[in-house]
Protein backbone atom coordinates (compact mmCIF):
# COMPACT_ATOMS: atom_id res chain seq x y z
CA UNK A 1 0.00 0.00 0.00
CA UNK A 2 1.65 3.26 -1.07
CA UNK A 3 2.23 6.26 1.19
CA UNK A 4 1.74 9.85 0.11
CA UNK A 5 4.90 11.84 -0.13
CA UNK A 6 3.81 14.41 2.44
CA UNK A 7 3.16 11.71 5.00
CA UNK A 8 6.62 10.23 4.59
CA UNK A 9 8.18 13.66 4.75
CA UNK A 10 6.32 14.72 7.86
CA UNK A 11 7.18 11.49 9.72
CA UNK A 12 10.84 12.08 8.96
CA UNK A 13 10.55 15.73 9.89
CA UNK A 14 9.07 14.83 13.27
CA UNK A 15 11.90 12.45 14.04
CA UNK A 16 14.74 14.62 12.70
CA UNK A 17 13.77 18.25 13.29
CA UNK A 18 17.20 19.60 12.30
CA UNK A 19 17.52 17.55 9.14
CA UNK A 20 17.82 18.37 5.50
CA UNK A 21 15.39 15.93 3.93
CA UNK A 22 15.32 15.32 0.24
CA UNK A 23 12.62 12.98 -0.97
CA UNK A 24 12.27 11.81 -4.52
CA UNK A 25 9.38 9.73 -5.85
CA UNK A 26 11.29 7.48 -8.21
CA UNK A 27 8.41 5.87 -10.05
CA UNK A 28 5.67 8.44 -9.52
CA UNK A 29 3.59 5.83 -7.68
CA UNK A 30 4.01 6.91 -4.02
CA UNK A 31 5.66 3.55 -3.41
CA UNK A 32 9.28 3.81 -4.52
CA UNK A 33 11.09 6.67 -2.86
CA UNK A 34 14.65 7.82 -2.67
CA UNK A 35 15.42 9.81 0.41
CA UNK A 36 18.48 11.58 1.74
CA UNK A 37 18.51 12.64 5.37
CA UNK A 38 21.27 14.89 6.65
CA UNK A 39 21.12 15.27 10.42
CA UNK A 40 23.36 15.79 13.42
CA UNK A 41 21.40 13.00 15.12
CA UNK A 42 23.54 10.50 13.20
CA UNK A 43 26.75 11.61 14.86
CA UNK A 44 28.60 8.64 16.31
CA UNK A 45 26.26 6.08 14.77
CA UNK A 46 27.19 3.39 12.30
CA UNK A 47 25.51 3.38 8.90
CA UNK A 48 23.32 0.50 9.97
CA UNK A 49 22.26 2.41 13.09
CA UNK A 50 21.58 5.55 11.04
CA UNK A 51 19.32 3.67 8.66
CA UNK A 52 17.62 1.90 11.56
CA UNK A 53 16.82 5.34 13.02
CA UNK A 54 15.14 6.34 9.77
CA UNK A 55 13.18 3.09 9.58
CA UNK A 56 12.20 3.62 13.20
CA UNK A 57 10.93 7.10 12.32
CA UNK A 58 8.66 5.54 9.72
CA UNK A 59 7.06 3.48 12.48
CA UNK A 60 7.30 0.10 10.83
CA UNK A 61 5.77 1.19 7.57
CA UNK A 62 8.91 0.31 5.69
CA UNK A 63 8.59 -3.18 4.24
CA UNK A 64 4.82 -3.16 4.57
CA UNK A 65 3.17 0.09 3.42
CA UNK A 66 6.31 1.27 1.73
CA UNK A 67 7.78 -1.08 -0.82
CA UNK A 68 11.04 0.62 -1.63
CA UNK A 69 13.03 3.34 0.03
CA UNK A 70 16.47 3.97 -1.33
CA UNK A 71 18.13 5.51 1.67
CA UNK A 72 21.15 7.70 2.17
CA UNK A 73 22.03 9.22 5.50
CA UNK A 74 24.69 11.82 6.17
CA UNK A 75 25.99 13.34 9.35
CA UNK A 76 25.51 17.05 9.55
CA UNK A 77 28.68 18.63 10.96
CA UNK A 78 28.24 20.40 14.29
CA UNK A 79 28.69 24.14 14.13
Amino acid at each position, binding site marked *: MPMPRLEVESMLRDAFPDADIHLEDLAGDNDHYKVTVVSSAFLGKTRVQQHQMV*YQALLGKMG*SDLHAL*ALKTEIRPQN
Partner: protein
Amino acid sequence: MHSIHDQIHADVTTHSVVLYMKGTSQVPQCGFSAVIVQILNTLNAPFKDVNVLADADIRQGIKDYSNWPTIPQLYVKGEFIGGCDIVREMYQAGELKKLLVEKGVV
Protein backbone atom coordinates in the same frame (compact mmCIF):
# COMPACT_ATOMS: atom_id res chain seq x y z
CA MET B 1 15.52 -26.05 21.28
CA HIS B 2 15.56 -25.13 17.64
CA SER B 3 14.25 -21.74 16.63
CA ILE B 4 14.49 -19.62 13.52
CA HIS B 5 16.72 -17.24 15.46
CA ASP B 6 19.10 -20.08 16.34
CA GLN B 7 19.16 -21.31 12.76
CA ILE B 8 19.98 -17.84 11.42
CA HIS B 9 22.61 -17.33 14.09
CA ALA B 10 24.21 -20.68 13.18
CA ASP B 11 24.18 -19.81 9.48
CA VAL B 12 25.75 -16.37 9.80
CA THR B 13 28.45 -17.57 12.18
CA THR B 14 29.27 -20.82 10.32
CA HIS B 15 29.71 -19.16 6.94
CA SER B 16 32.07 -16.21 6.46
CA VAL B 17 29.73 -14.33 4.13
CA VAL B 18 25.99 -14.89 3.96
CA LEU B 19 23.55 -13.03 1.74
CA TYR B 20 19.84 -13.24 2.54
CA MET B 21 18.22 -12.45 -0.76
CA LYS B 22 15.23 -12.87 -3.02
CA GLY B 23 16.08 -15.62 -5.47
CA THR B 24 19.46 -17.31 -5.72
CA SER B 25 22.91 -16.01 -6.60
CA GLN B 26 22.46 -17.62 -10.01
CA VAL B 27 18.96 -16.26 -10.52
CA PRO B 28 18.24 -13.20 -8.35
CA GLN B 29 14.57 -12.27 -8.34
CA CYS B 30 14.93 -8.71 -7.14
CA GLY B 31 17.07 -5.88 -8.42
CA PHE B 32 18.36 -4.94 -4.97
CA SER B 33 19.48 -8.50 -4.31
CA ALA B 34 21.10 -8.67 -7.74
CA VAL B 35 23.20 -5.59 -6.98
CA ILE B 36 24.81 -7.18 -3.93
CA VAL B 37 25.43 -10.47 -5.78
CA GLN B 38 27.18 -8.53 -8.49
CA ILE B 39 29.30 -6.59 -6.01
CA LEU B 40 30.38 -9.75 -4.17
CA ASN B 41 31.22 -11.44 -7.47
CA THR B 42 33.24 -8.43 -8.57
CA LEU B 43 35.23 -8.62 -5.33
CA ASN B 44 35.68 -12.40 -5.78
CA ALA B 45 34.11 -12.97 -2.39
CA PRO B 46 32.65 -16.43 -1.95
CA PHE B 47 29.31 -16.34 -0.15
CA LYS B 48 26.38 -18.48 0.88
CA ASP B 49 23.07 -17.35 -0.55
CA VAL B 50 19.82 -17.90 1.33
CA ASN B 51 16.67 -17.50 -0.73
CA VAL B 52 14.05 -15.99 1.57
CA LEU B 53 11.34 -16.55 -1.03
CA ALA B 54 11.73 -20.28 -0.39
CA ASP B 55 11.07 -19.99 3.35
CA ALA B 56 8.53 -17.59 4.86
CA ASP B 57 9.85 -18.20 8.40
CA ILE B 58 13.37 -17.18 7.42
CA ARG B 59 12.00 -14.22 5.48
CA GLN B 60 10.36 -12.82 8.60
CA GLY B 61 12.99 -14.22 10.96
CA ILE B 62 15.90 -12.41 9.36
CA LYS B 63 14.09 -9.07 9.68
CA ASP B 64 13.57 -9.71 13.38
CA TYR B 65 17.14 -10.95 13.83
CA SER B 66 18.72 -7.74 12.57
CA ASN B 67 15.91 -5.29 13.31
CA TRP B 68 16.02 -4.41 9.63
CA PRO B 69 12.83 -4.27 7.57
CA THR B 70 14.06 -5.22 4.13
CA ILE B 71 15.78 -7.90 2.08
CA PRO B 72 18.60 -8.25 0.94
CA GLN B 73 20.81 -8.39 4.02
CA LEU B 74 24.53 -9.05 4.02
CA TYR B 75 26.42 -10.68 6.89
CA VAL B 76 30.18 -11.00 7.26
CA LYS B 77 31.56 -13.21 10.05
CA GLY B 78 28.28 -13.02 11.89
CA GLU B 79 27.98 -9.25 11.69
CA PHE B 80 25.13 -7.54 9.87
CA ILE B 81 26.72 -5.20 7.33
CA GLY B 82 23.67 -3.67 5.71
CA GLY B 83 21.20 -3.75 2.87
CA CYS B 84 21.61 -2.73 -0.74
CA ASP B 85 22.19 1.00 -0.19
CA ILE B 86 24.83 0.59 2.51
CA VAL B 87 26.65 -2.22 0.71
CA ARG B 88 26.75 -0.21 -2.50
CA GLU B 89 27.99 2.87 -0.64
CA MET B 90 30.70 0.82 1.09
CA TYR B 91 31.70 -0.80 -2.19
CA GLN B 92 32.01 2.53 -3.97
CA ALA B 93 34.10 3.93 -1.12
CA GLY B 94 36.40 0.88 -1.13
CA GLU B 95 35.29 0.06 2.41
CA LEU B 96 33.68 -3.25 1.59
CA LYS B 97 36.82 -4.66 0.02
CA LYS B 98 38.83 -3.43 2.99
CA LEU B 99 36.42 -5.14 5.37
CA LEU B 100 36.51 -8.41 3.44
CA VAL B 101 40.31 -8.36 3.38
CA GLU B 102 40.48 -7.56 7.08
CA LYS B 103 38.14 -10.44 7.86
CA GLY B 104 40.22 -12.76 5.72
CA VAL B 105 37.42 -13.45 3.24
CA VAL B 106 39.28 -12.40 0.09
